[in-house]
Protein backbone atom coordinates (compact mmCIF):
# COMPACT_ATOMS: atom_id res chain seq x y z
CA UNK A 1 0.00 0.00 0.00
CA UNK A 2 2.68 2.45 0.98
CA UNK A 3 4.90 1.48 -1.95
CA UNK A 4 2.07 2.06 -4.42
CA UNK A 5 1.31 5.37 -2.75
CA UNK A 6 4.92 6.52 -3.06
CA UNK A 7 5.14 5.43 -6.70
CA UNK A 8 1.93 7.32 -7.52
CA UNK A 9 3.35 10.38 -5.77
CA UNK A 10 6.53 10.10 -7.81
CA UNK A 11 4.52 9.85 -11.05
CA UNK A 12 2.51 12.94 -10.12
CA UNK A 13 5.71 14.86 -9.37
CA UNK A 14 7.09 13.85 -12.77
CA UNK A 15 3.93 15.13 -14.48
CA UNK A 16 4.06 18.40 -12.54
CA UNK A 17 7.71 18.85 -13.52
CA UNK A 18 7.02 18.18 -17.19
CA UNK A 19 4.19 20.69 -17.10
CA UNK A 20 6.64 23.22 -15.66
CA UNK A 21 9.28 22.53 -18.32
CA UNK A 22 6.68 23.02 -21.04
CA UNK A 23 5.07 26.18 -19.69
CA UNK A 24 7.82 28.23 -18.05
CA UNK A 25 9.20 31.11 -20.10
CA UNK A 26 12.02 32.08 -17.75
CA UNK A 27 15.11 29.87 -18.17
CA UNK A 28 15.65 29.63 -14.42
CA UNK A 29 12.04 28.50 -14.08
CA UNK A 30 12.73 25.63 -16.47
CA UNK A 31 15.72 24.60 -14.35
CA UNK A 32 13.55 24.64 -11.22
CA UNK A 33 11.03 22.37 -12.96
CA UNK A 34 13.85 19.99 -13.93
CA UNK A 35 14.75 19.82 -10.24
CA UNK A 36 11.18 18.70 -9.50
CA UNK A 37 11.58 15.88 -12.07
CA UNK A 38 14.90 14.79 -10.50
CA UNK A 39 13.20 14.81 -7.11
CA UNK A 40 10.58 12.41 -8.49
CA UNK A 41 13.34 10.08 -9.74
CA UNK A 42 15.06 10.12 -6.33
CA UNK A 43 11.78 9.32 -4.64
CA UNK A 44 11.47 6.29 -6.90
CA UNK A 45 14.95 5.08 -5.94
CA UNK A 46 14.20 5.41 -2.23
CA UNK A 47 10.85 3.66 -2.60
CA UNK A 48 12.39 0.61 -4.23
CA UNK A 49 15.28 0.62 -1.75
CA UNK A 50 12.80 0.24 1.08
CA UNK A 51 9.97 -1.76 -0.47
CA UNK A 52 10.88 -4.97 -2.20
CA UNK A 53 14.16 -3.95 -3.78
CA UNK A 54 16.95 -6.51 -3.99
CA UNK A 55 19.72 -4.05 -3.08
CA UNK A 56 18.72 -1.39 -0.51
CA UNK A 57 22.23 0.04 -0.24
CA UNK A 58 22.49 0.88 -3.93
CA UNK A 59 19.00 2.35 -3.82
CA UNK A 60 20.04 4.70 -1.04
CA UNK A 61 23.31 5.68 -2.70
CA UNK A 62 22.02 6.48 -6.19
CA UNK A 63 20.09 9.61 -5.15
CA UNK A 64 23.40 11.03 -3.97
CA UNK A 65 24.90 10.49 -7.42
CA UNK A 66 21.85 12.15 -8.93
CA UNK A 67 22.36 15.11 -6.60
CA UNK A 68 26.05 15.43 -7.49
CA UNK A 69 25.38 15.33 -11.24
CA UNK A 70 22.56 17.82 -10.79
CA UNK A 71 24.93 20.12 -8.87
CA UNK A 72 27.37 20.03 -11.82
CA UNK A 73 24.53 20.69 -14.24
CA UNK A 74 23.32 23.63 -12.19
CA UNK A 75 26.81 25.15 -11.94
CA UNK A 76 27.30 25.13 -15.71
CA UNK A 77 23.70 26.08 -16.51
CA UNK A 78 23.68 29.04 -14.16
CA UNK A 79 27.03 30.24 -15.52
CA UNK A 80 25.54 30.10 -19.02
CA UNK A 81 22.47 31.98 -17.77
CA UNK A 82 24.59 34.74 -16.27
CA UNK A 83 26.64 35.08 -19.47
CA UNK A 84 23.40 35.14 -21.48
CA UNK A 85 21.87 37.76 -19.22
CA UNK A 86 24.93 39.96 -19.62
CA UNK A 87 24.69 39.81 -23.41
CA UNK A 88 20.94 39.85 -24.10
CA UNK A 89 19.53 41.30 -20.86
CA UNK A 90 16.53 38.98 -20.84
CA UNK A 91 15.87 35.35 -19.93
CA UNK A 92 12.72 34.69 -21.95
CA UNK A 93 13.09 31.49 -23.96
CA UNK A 94 10.44 32.67 -26.44
CA UNK A 95 12.61 35.64 -27.36
CA UNK A 96 16.08 34.06 -27.30
CA UNK A 97 16.43 32.96 -30.90
CA UNK A 98 20.21 32.96 -31.28
CA UNK A 99 20.39 29.20 -31.92
CA UNK A 100 17.26 28.87 -34.05
CA UNK A 101 17.95 27.25 -37.40
Amino acid sequence: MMAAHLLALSLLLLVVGIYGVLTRRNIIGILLAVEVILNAANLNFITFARWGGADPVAGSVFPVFVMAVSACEMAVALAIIIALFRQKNNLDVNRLRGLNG
Partner: protein
Amino acid sequence: MHEVALIVLSGLLLLFSLAVVVAPNILHAAIALIASFLVTSAIYLQNGAEFAALAQIMIYIGGIVIFMVITVLLTSRLGEENIYFTPTWQRLTGVGVSAALLLVSFLIAARVYRARLVPTTIGPGAIADLDAIGLRLLRSDSEGLALPFELISVLLLISLIGAIVIARKEPAAGKGGAS
Protein backbone atom coordinates in the same frame (compact mmCIF):
# COMPACT_ATOMS: atom_id res chain seq x y z
CA MET B 1 -0.45 6.35 11.74
CA HIS B 2 2.31 6.06 9.14
CA GLU B 3 -0.26 6.12 6.39
CA VAL B 4 -1.82 9.35 7.63
CA ALA B 5 1.58 11.01 7.97
CA LEU B 6 2.54 9.88 4.48
CA ILE B 7 -0.69 11.22 2.99
CA VAL B 8 -0.20 14.59 4.68
CA LEU B 9 3.44 14.76 3.52
CA SER B 10 2.48 13.78 -0.04
CA GLY B 11 -0.17 16.49 -0.15
CA LEU B 12 2.34 19.08 1.03
CA LEU B 13 4.93 17.88 -1.48
CA LEU B 14 2.49 18.09 -4.39
CA LEU B 15 1.35 21.53 -3.25
CA PHE B 16 4.88 22.92 -3.03
CA SER B 17 5.89 21.35 -6.35
CA LEU B 18 2.88 22.91 -8.03
CA ALA B 19 3.90 26.23 -6.51
CA VAL B 20 7.39 25.76 -7.99
CA VAL B 21 5.86 25.26 -11.40
CA VAL B 22 3.17 27.96 -11.48
CA ALA B 23 4.39 30.81 -9.26
CA PRO B 24 4.84 33.89 -11.47
CA ASN B 25 7.70 35.30 -9.41
CA ILE B 26 10.72 33.06 -9.90
CA LEU B 27 12.09 33.82 -6.42
CA HIS B 28 8.88 32.52 -4.83
CA ALA B 29 9.25 29.39 -6.96
CA ALA B 30 12.80 28.84 -5.66
CA ILE B 31 11.62 29.19 -2.06
CA ALA B 32 8.78 26.74 -2.71
CA LEU B 33 11.41 24.36 -4.09
CA ILE B 34 13.28 24.56 -0.76
CA ALA B 35 10.06 23.70 1.08
CA SER B 36 9.37 20.78 -1.26
CA PHE B 37 12.89 19.41 -0.70
CA LEU B 38 12.39 19.60 3.07
CA VAL B 39 9.14 17.64 2.80
CA THR B 40 10.86 15.11 0.52
CA SER B 41 13.60 14.53 3.06
CA ALA B 42 10.89 13.95 5.67
CA ILE B 43 9.44 11.25 3.41
CA TYR B 44 12.93 9.74 3.02
CA LEU B 45 13.32 9.64 6.80
CA GLN B 46 9.97 7.94 7.10
CA ASN B 47 11.17 5.26 4.69
CA GLY B 48 14.42 4.60 6.51
CA ALA B 49 16.79 6.42 4.16
CA GLU B 50 18.62 8.69 6.59
CA PHE B 51 21.65 9.08 4.34
CA ALA B 52 19.62 10.27 1.37
CA ALA B 53 17.56 12.59 3.60
CA LEU B 54 20.64 14.29 5.04
CA ALA B 55 22.30 14.52 1.63
CA GLN B 56 19.10 16.04 0.28
CA ILE B 57 19.12 18.76 2.91
CA MET B 58 22.85 19.49 2.67
CA ILE B 59 23.42 19.28 -1.09
CA TYR B 60 20.08 20.35 -2.52
CA ILE B 61 18.89 22.93 -0.01
CA GLY B 62 22.28 24.09 1.20
CA GLY B 63 23.93 24.12 -2.20
CA ILE B 64 21.89 23.96 -5.35
CA VAL B 65 18.81 25.98 -4.42
CA ILE B 66 20.83 28.66 -2.66
CA PHE B 67 22.92 28.91 -5.83
CA MET B 68 19.73 29.31 -7.85
CA VAL B 69 18.41 31.99 -5.52
CA ILE B 70 21.68 33.90 -5.94
CA THR B 71 21.34 33.67 -9.72
CA VAL B 72 17.75 34.92 -9.53
CA LEU B 73 18.91 37.86 -7.44
CA LEU B 74 21.74 38.61 -9.89
CA THR B 75 19.48 38.61 -12.94
CA SER B 76 16.36 40.38 -11.62
CA ARG B 77 15.51 42.58 -8.69
CA LEU B 78 13.99 40.18 -6.14
CA GLY B 79 12.58 38.19 -9.05
CA GLU B 80 10.22 41.02 -9.90
CA GLU B 81 11.80 42.15 -13.15
CA ASN B 82 11.81 39.11 -15.38
CA ILE B 83 8.24 37.93 -14.90
CA TYR B 84 7.01 36.50 -18.18
CA PHE B 85 3.40 35.46 -18.37
CA THR B 86 2.82 32.20 -20.16
CA PRO B 87 0.48 32.51 -23.15
CA THR B 88 -2.69 30.47 -23.01
CA TRP B 89 -1.77 28.17 -25.92
CA GLN B 90 1.43 27.19 -24.13
CA ARG B 91 -0.43 26.53 -20.90
CA LEU B 92 -3.01 24.41 -22.72
CA THR B 93 -0.24 22.44 -24.48
CA GLY B 94 1.42 21.80 -21.13
CA VAL B 95 -1.82 20.60 -19.57
CA GLY B 96 -2.55 18.39 -22.58
CA VAL B 97 0.88 16.74 -22.68
CA SER B 98 0.93 16.21 -18.92
CA ALA B 99 -2.57 14.76 -18.89
CA ALA B 100 -1.70 12.42 -21.78
CA LEU B 101 1.44 11.26 -19.96
CA LEU B 102 -0.55 10.67 -16.78
CA LEU B 103 -3.21 8.73 -18.67
CA VAL B 104 -0.68 6.51 -20.49
CA SER B 105 1.24 5.80 -17.26
CA PHE B 106 -2.00 4.97 -15.50
CA LEU B 107 -3.01 2.56 -18.26
CA ILE B 108 0.42 0.87 -18.14
CA ALA B 109 0.25 0.61 -14.35
CA ALA B 110 -3.24 -0.88 -14.48
CA ARG B 111 -2.10 -3.42 -17.07
CA VAL B 112 0.97 -4.40 -15.06
CA TYR B 113 -1.19 -4.71 -11.98
CA ARG B 114 -3.74 -6.92 -13.75
CA ALA B 115 -1.09 -9.17 -15.30
CA ARG B 116 0.45 -9.68 -11.83
CA LEU B 117 3.94 -8.95 -13.12
CA VAL B 118 4.93 -7.57 -9.74
CA PRO B 119 3.89 -8.87 -6.33
CA THR B 120 1.00 -6.71 -5.16
CA THR B 121 1.76 -6.95 -1.47
CA ILE B 122 5.34 -5.95 -0.78
CA GLY B 123 6.51 -5.82 2.79
CA PRO B 124 9.20 -3.45 3.98
CA GLY B 125 12.67 -4.69 3.09
CA ALA B 126 15.94 -4.24 4.91
CA ILE B 127 17.02 -0.73 5.86
CA ALA B 128 20.42 0.29 4.50
CA ASP B 129 22.48 1.53 7.44
CA LEU B 130 25.23 4.10 7.18
CA ASP B 131 28.06 1.58 7.69
CA ALA B 132 26.92 -0.49 4.73
CA ILE B 133 26.58 2.62 2.55
CA GLY B 134 30.06 3.89 3.40
CA LEU B 135 31.71 0.52 2.81
CA ARG B 136 29.83 0.08 -0.45
CA LEU B 137 30.90 3.49 -1.72
CA LEU B 138 34.58 2.66 -1.31
CA ARG B 139 34.54 -0.98 -2.41
CA SER B 140 36.10 -1.64 -5.78
CA ASP B 141 34.84 -5.12 -6.67
CA SER B 142 32.01 -5.79 -9.12
CA GLU B 143 29.32 -4.57 -6.70
CA GLY B 144 31.30 -1.67 -5.28
CA LEU B 145 30.66 1.93 -6.23
CA ALA B 146 34.20 3.28 -5.89
CA LEU B 147 34.60 4.20 -9.56
CA PRO B 148 31.45 6.35 -9.87
CA PHE B 149 32.23 7.88 -6.49
CA GLU B 150 35.64 9.03 -7.70
CA LEU B 151 34.35 10.03 -11.13
CA ILE B 152 31.84 12.33 -9.44
CA SER B 153 34.69 14.31 -7.88
CA VAL B 154 36.39 14.72 -11.27
CA LEU B 155 33.05 15.78 -12.78
CA LEU B 156 32.54 18.37 -10.04
CA LEU B 157 36.01 19.79 -10.68
CA ILE B 158 35.41 19.96 -14.44
CA SER B 159 32.07 21.72 -14.05
CA LEU B 160 33.58 24.13 -11.52
CA ILE B 161 36.28 25.18 -13.96
CA GLY B 162 33.80 25.27 -16.83
CA ALA B 163 31.41 27.47 -14.88
CA ILE B 164 34.18 29.93 -14.05
CA VAL B 165 35.33 30.08 -17.67
CA ILE B 166 31.80 30.61 -19.00
CA ALA B 167 30.72 33.22 -16.46
CA ARG B 168 34.00 35.17 -16.53
CA LYS B 169 33.75 38.75 -17.66
CA GLU B 170 35.25 39.31 -21.10
CA PRO B 171 38.44 41.37 -20.82
CA ALA B 172 37.89 44.96 -21.95
CA ALA B 173 38.59 45.50 -25.65
CA GLY B 174 41.06 48.32 -25.11
CA LYS B 175 43.28 46.56 -22.59
CA GLY B 176 43.53 43.29 -24.52
CA GLY B 177 45.10 40.06 -23.30
CA ALA B 178 43.60 37.53 -20.93
CA SER B 179 43.76 38.43 -17.28
